[in-house]
Structure formats: C-alpha cells, structure tokens
C-alpha cells in the first residue's frame, strides 16, 4: 500500500453538463408543449361567436359556452330561467332548468354548460364568471356600473 503523502492537489472533477443540458431541454420542451399544443385541449369554454366555427365548439357536442347575459333579457318562468347570451355581436338564446346560483344577474359574464337544440342552448349548469374588478357597493354606483358593464359588453 502506498502511504507516501500526496504532493499535488486532487484534480477537480469536471462539471457535469449533461444533467444541466437535459434539464434545460425538458424545461423548454415543457413550455412548448404547454403553450403550443395543450391550449386547444385545455380551454375551458367556447365563446358564443365560436359555436359551429371553432374546432371543439361543434353544435352537435355538449359545450361550455361563455358570453354576457344581455340586459333586459332575463326571464324566469316556473322552474326555467331564460336569457340571451352575447359575445362579439353574436347572440344565442339560453334556457336553464333551475335558478342559477352564485351572483348570476344581467350584464355579467357566465359559462353555460349544455347543448344546442333547435337553435336554443339548453343548459343544465350555469357558472358566473366574475371580472377582476372590485368596486364599492352603493346605491348610486349599482345602477351606473350595471349600465356601464352592459354597454361595454354589448359594444
């Protein structure tokens, strides 16, 4: 056994570049997959103007459709709620079996789940899609903000 003292510094190990390169490639690959390929699969809804136009928004399938509840279109008849949903100047009539929950009201964005049957969207689930704006509630502002929201949605 060689027990003579070492005279030189132990050689430095070369940096392991392969794992770093592999990790970078995985990262880049992940970003490409997420941004390029998954978008069409992950989008939660079709907009009203995309029904029958965009891939995945075919009238023959069950859809989740997003749009704004048009002002003065909301009607409740028995157990049914009907309203007009608009997006990008395209509108559809929606009939919902039941009373929508959440903060459902006119001039608000909603996502309706259902099917197009004879030109009417028959929905069995409504979700309210609230905006990222927060304002104080007071009597004067309710009216003005409601009108503003509707004119914005319709314009």
């Amino acid at each position, binding site marked *: 056994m060689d027990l003579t003292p070492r005279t030189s510094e132990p050689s430095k190990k070369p940096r392991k570049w392969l794992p770093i390169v592999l990790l970078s490639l995985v*990262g880049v690959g992940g970003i490409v997959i997420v941004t390029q390929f998954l978008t069409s699969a992950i989008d939660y809804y079709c907009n009203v103007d995309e029904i029958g136009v965009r891939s995945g928004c075919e009238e023959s399938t069950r859809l989740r459709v997003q749009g704004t509840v048009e002002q003065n279109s909301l009607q409740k008849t028995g157990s049914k709620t009907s309203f007009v949903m608009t997006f990008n100047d395209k509108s559809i009539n929606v009939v919902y079996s039941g009373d*929508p929950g959440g*903060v459902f*009201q006119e001039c608000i964005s909603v996502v309706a789940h259902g099917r197009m049957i004879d030109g009417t969207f028959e929905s069995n689930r409504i*979700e309210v899609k609230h905006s990222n704006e927060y304002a104080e*509630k007071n009597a004067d502002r309710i009216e003005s903000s409601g009108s503003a929201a509707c004119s914005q949605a319709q314009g």
Partner: protein
Amino acid sequence: MSQVLQRTSATGTRATRVIGATSILVMAWVVVSGLLLTPQDVVQGESVRIMYVHVPSAWIAYLAFIFTAVASASWLISKKHSMGFDRFAGASAEVGVMFMAITLVTGSLWGRLTWGEFWQWDPRLTTTAFLFVTYIGYLAVRRLEGSVEQRARRSAVVAMLAVLEIPLVHFSVVLWRSLHQGATVLNPNGDVKMDDLMLFTLFSGVVGFTLVFIWLVLHRQRTMLLVDLANNQGLDSAIVARRAEGSAN
C-alpha cells in the same frame, strides 16, 4: 452533543418574538378591516371578504415554494453543503403547503358563492391542485429512507423542478380560457381596478401573511435542527454503546 441540544432546545429568539408580535398586530388589522371596514363589492357583495385571505395565502405559497427552490439550489451549489439550506427549504415547503391548502379551501368557498360551484377543473384550479400535490410529493421525498445528505440532494432536485410550475399556475388564466378571473394586482396592464381600502387591506394581508410565514419557517427549521441533533445524539450513543460492548468482550 447533549450540551448543544440543551442550548438550542428553545426555538424562539428575540427576533422571532418581535416578528410574532408584529404579525399578530397586522393580522388583527386585516381581520377588523376585512370584516368591518372594507365595503361590499358591487357584484360579489359580502363574499369579496374571502379575498383578503385567499389572495395573500396564494402569494405566500408561491413565495414559500420559490424560497424552497432558492435554498435547495444554494445547498446544491455551495461547497460545504450546509444543512441549514436544506432545513430552510424543507420548512418553507411545509409552510407553503399549508398556505396552498388555505388557498384551495378559501377559493372553493369563494367559488361556491360567486360561480355557484365549489370546484371546476378549469386551468387555474387544475394547475393549482397539481402544484399542491407536487409539494405534498416533495414532503414525501424528504421522508424517504437515507442519510440527511441523501434527503437534501433528492429533495433539492425535486424542489428545483417543482418551482417551474409556478409560472404555469400564475399565467394559466392568460394562456388559457379559465373560469377563474384574471389577475387584478399583478395584471399585465398594471391597471389595478380595486377600491382603495380593499387594496390597502389586501396588501396588509400580504404583509401579515408574510410575517406569519417568516415566523413559522424560523421556528420550523429550528425544530428540524433539534431533530437532526437528537438523531445524531442517538447515533453517537449507539456507537459508544457498541464500543463499550466491544471492549467488554
């Protein structure tokens, strides 16, 4: 070793007491302002008050996971491989998972009140759930069999990969169509549309939750240190006992 253990048997210091007391004061303000002083939202009404817990807890969870990744990278890069980095990484992840759980629960309650649903598999909710599960996995990796160095190395790699999910979660509402609303404060336009007192209370919540996070992480990493010291002490005792057996024979 036992002397070291005795000296460090308390996890509180003057600094942690100051942080703890300050966080209590800030959180008390957030509770009073969030429940009593801030107005109802014009659309969401009273349910908007959940925001003062939901949003700060989400941000602090992100912060915790980023902190875990930074501490993990520091452990990997540093020549000494100081176990302090590993303990900070582990402590931060544990606290982050707790804040993420608060985010999911409060978000679910808020969703029921506004959307009408407790849960939907939309992009934001799905990626957030995935992030939560990933860090549960990270904590599981930390409890695998092996030495403290093995624990540190494995978990550091997982932490550095897992943190890449955070941009995906945050930008999921921009990349895809989501039921979840877009960012109000950290939006790309920089135009914050929120009542002033609501915004101030929200930021107070962020400050308060940050102080709570720091306080919890400091205490948790010190309890981890005590556990490591106790384990080492047990190992030393076992070695001494085996040596005594050997010399007796």
